């Protein structure tokens, strides 16, 4: 489903964030991305979603080489993904409901459909009662769950989640893990970075460890 082939990423003016990474994620797999801070986890996820481009090497998603993709095709590629960002990237001037609705509006769903799906997604992260709140009125963990709701509302085939449990206490972290497990069971491919692999133990994910930009054996 996702294949990285000898990928190196060097940010402009920086040192190498990734070096010679080759990795294959199969359809329906649950991959846990581990590594110390600065190891390159976020960078790896961004390369998969074509948010960053590799300095060398190639990234393939569903058989498409992202390097050969026309810029106009990138939005359609990204709609296959549900993205959970490390920094949430919520719109502060929009309500929770509007934030979660954004992926559906982008793809042209009609109003009634949007309302129904947004409610369902908020239910799954336990935030139904906050749908009219604005992100600033939410705790860090609640914001994180809004971000997760936004990532799954359009039922993507692949979820790329960057530290989705970082701000959550154990109870909520386990709920998110349960949510991801449910997605995994219906065939969604998940790549999740984390500093806390123990909360994912019950899923028995495949673990990939990055160390200073390279895959550890």
């Amino acid at each position: 489903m996702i294949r990285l082939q000898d990928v190196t990423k060097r940010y402009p003016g920086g040192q190498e964030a990734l070096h010679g990474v080759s990795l294959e994620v199969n359809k329906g797999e649950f991959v846990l991305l581990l590594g110390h801070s600065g190891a390159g986890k976020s960078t790896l996820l961004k390369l998969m979603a074509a948010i960053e481009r590799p300095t060398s090497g190639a990234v393939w998603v569903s058989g498409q080489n992202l390097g050969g993709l026309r810029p106009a095709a990138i939005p359609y590629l990204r709609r296959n993904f549900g993205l959970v960002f490390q920094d949430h990237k919520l719109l502060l001037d929009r309500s929770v409901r509007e934030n979660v609705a954004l992926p559906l509006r982008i793809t042209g769903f009609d109003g009634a459909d949007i309302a129904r799906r947004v409610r369902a997604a908020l239910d799954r992260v336990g935030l139904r009662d906050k749908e009219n709140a604005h992100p600033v009125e939410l705790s860090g963990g609640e914001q994180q769950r809004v971000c997760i709701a936004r990532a799954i509302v359009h039922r993507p085939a692949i979820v790329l989640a960057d530290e989705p449990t970082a701000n959550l206490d154990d109870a909520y972290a386990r709920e998110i893990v349960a949510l991801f497990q449910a997605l995994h069971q219906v065939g969604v491919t998940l790549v999740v970075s984390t500093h806390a692999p123990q909360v994912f133990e019950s899923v028995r994910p495949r673990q990939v460890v990055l160390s200073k930009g390279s895959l550890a054996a």
Partner: protein
Amino acid sequence: MRTWLREHALAFSDTLGRMGRSPVGTLLSILVIGIALALPAGLHVLLKNLATLAPERSAEPELTLYLQADLAEPDRKGLESRLAGHVAVSKVRFVPRDVALKELEKATGMASIQEEIGRNPLPDAFVVAGRRGAADALEKLQAEAGRWPGIEHAQLDSAWARQVDSALRAGRVFILMLAGVLVVGLGAVTFNTIRLQILNRREEIEVSKLIGATNAFIRRPFLYFGAIQAVAGALLSWLLVELAVGALETQLGQGASLLSPGESLMRLSLLDLVGAGLIAALVGWIGAWLSVAFHLRRLDPT
């Protein structure tokens, strides 16, 4: 098709919502555009009213040929057929001196010119109507015919009417140029409003792109914004001109009695309004499109 309609309806309502969220800024922009467009629109109405004052025949020039007093009938007939055959001439009318006198008495309201002077001071004349647009040829004919035997004097009529005519034409050119400049101004105002909006909504644009929004999706509400704002400005300028004409009508009617009761000034026609609205919408749309194209490229995360 339904999706397409829905997306546009969505962008449209989204745009109105956005305007509602910053009413002061929106109103100020519309005011600037409205006042700027009211200028050429007002001049256009002024010119329309002036044009009704100019005599209608000014479009078809006339040449009057005064005949020598002692001209014999056959010579007169000869002149007439010569004139009728000329390329610049559409119609020749003979005005005998006594008819001319009656016309003069009627026009001036002096009933007894002949009695006071003792004789009819007017000569016989040909009134020659030129072909439409043949003013130059008629002018040549004037010089030529002035030297023909039997003709005392050739006069190209109503120089003032032609001056009014060319003044009106110059006025129209001026208005067109002014409108052109202001249309560019409208585009620039729109470009700038949209630039500020894009900066304000930078986050939203970036996040939208990250989760799969196409450029068209991002562009759409801004294009609507540009067009709606410009059309609102055009409507405002129409309203301003209407108010001005109304006030002027009252002044001219009551104060100066230049308008008789029931008489009214020309106003902007529906065609003027619709035309201006369409042009404004187009220019607003284009201004917004350029602005989005220019500023989105700088925001592109990839």
